[in-house]
């Protein structure tokens, strides 16, 4: 009798120790480093592999549980570009990064090399409202009280107006936070040069995503405006030779940029003349 009670006690202890051990593991396990772009998809044909953003609320995480032959955890999401449409609850395990859901056509597309002919077009739809070669808009203009130099030409235009690809190439980095609430997109041209389109809005252009090829003149983003009152809506246009690799933003020189940064003024002037018959 005594033996049996001691056995019962030890089996219960075993259960609780095991449960404690499993929970501890989940707390102390290393955070996995995932690969891909930070964009989620509901990985199920039932949801048409829709792109979604997990909703977070100020009064706590948005998790619910329902019982369907076992516990099912639900998470609140908004479908991308759904504006003020209400959010919906989806099973938590269906919400994954796009790179973890190959069925959703998230794998890099093959680059259409035939389309990658070196030919270029001015990235703004209309002439800029001010010269991009003078004042604070010019490449090399003073920044940071003289500690830095401007790494781009600023093309002043109208907020939300389309920005087009200067040439054929491939998107090598999709939208990320750039400066004061605006975003940047990085693109490799067919001639190996790299362009960073900065200060664009977060709006996704049709058929533009990571590793997709784009054609000359294709819309790749939209003109943004920074949060402060410093300046007009603009495209911040950076150009790199492309003979180096690594992050475009780097310390170590007056531009705080990768060493193969080049002045895009002449490149843009030629394109402006081609498109509008005149230039600043």
């Amino acid at each position, binding site marked *: 009798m005594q033996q049996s009670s001691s056995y019962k006690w030890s089996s219960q202890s075993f259960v609780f120790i095991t449960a404690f051990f499993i929970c501890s593991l989940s707390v102390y396990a290393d955070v996995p480093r995932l690969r891909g772009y*930070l964009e989620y998809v509901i990985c199920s044909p039932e949801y048409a592999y829709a792109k979604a953003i997990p909703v977070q609320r100020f009064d*706590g995480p948005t998790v619910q549980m329902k019982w369907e032959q076992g*516990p099912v955890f639900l998470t609140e999401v908004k479908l991308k570009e759904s504006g003020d449409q209400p959010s919906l609850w989806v099973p938590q395990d269906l919400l994954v990064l796009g790179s973890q859901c190959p069925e959703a056509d998230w794998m890099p597309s093959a680059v259409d090399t035939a389309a990658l002919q070196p030919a270029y077009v001015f990235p703004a739809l209309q002439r800029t409202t001010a010269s991009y070669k003078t004042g604070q808009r010019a490449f090399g203009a003073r920044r940071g009280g003289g500690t*830095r130099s401007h790494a781009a030409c600023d093309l002043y235009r109208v907020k939300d107006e389309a920005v087009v690809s200067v040439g054929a190439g491939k998107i090598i980095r999709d939208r990320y*936070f750039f400066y004061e609430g605006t975003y940047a997109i990085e693109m490799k041209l067919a001639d190996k040069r790299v362009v960073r389109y900065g200060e664009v809005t977060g709006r996704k252009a049709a058929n533009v995503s990571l590793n997709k090829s784009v054609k000359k003149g294709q819309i790749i983003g939209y003109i943004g405006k920074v949060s402060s009152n410093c300046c007009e809506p603009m495209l911040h246009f950076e150009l790199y030779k492309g003979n180096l690799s690594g992050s475009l933003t780097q*310390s170590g020189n007056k531009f705080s940029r990768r060493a193969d940064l080049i002045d895009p003024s002449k490149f843009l002037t030629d394109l402006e003349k081609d498109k509008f018959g005149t230039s600043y």
Partner: protein
Amino acid sequence: MYMRKILSIAFLTLAALAWFRAESQNRPEPGATLESLQVLLGLFAESSKNSGNLQTLIARLESLNYEPVVVTDQNSDTGSLTFVRTNRPPLGTRYFHAQYFEEHRPQHLSVEFQSGSNALELVAGEISRVFPAASLVEESNHFRKWRLDDDYLIWIKRLQAEDLPTVQESPFNAYGAEDIGAIQITLEESIGHD
């Protein structure tokens, strides 16, 4: 026989723990919001100093039980960009977001603080306390910007109705009309027009 009993007890224990976790996540703890702001601004301060590398940030978020999510986007031309988000933001805050081009220094850190009658002033006061050397360089009704040093700026913005169409295009965060008044807090590398 005993094994079946043990397994069913283990299953029930784990299910109960999972249930309790989900329920506790949905239970607000009043009065914790200022503390959340202070913890996050402290993290911003640590991260923008030399000691604040990516691994340290992840470890700190993990120790705070914020459930960090780390995603690295890499290509052979422009290197890697690592995003850090959290699945479990502290009360009164949301949408923590960090970007690292290089492991030893963040390019961008941001979070949002809940709206309130004096939320902008509250956040501004905490920034002045956490970053005593910061110099205010721009101020308006809904926006403030400080220079921290040669490398970093911090700015805050109260979300206005006219901002909604723009923020609703965000690739990372979801917004609705109920978010007007929320305070965006961003510490980022000084690479812009300043």
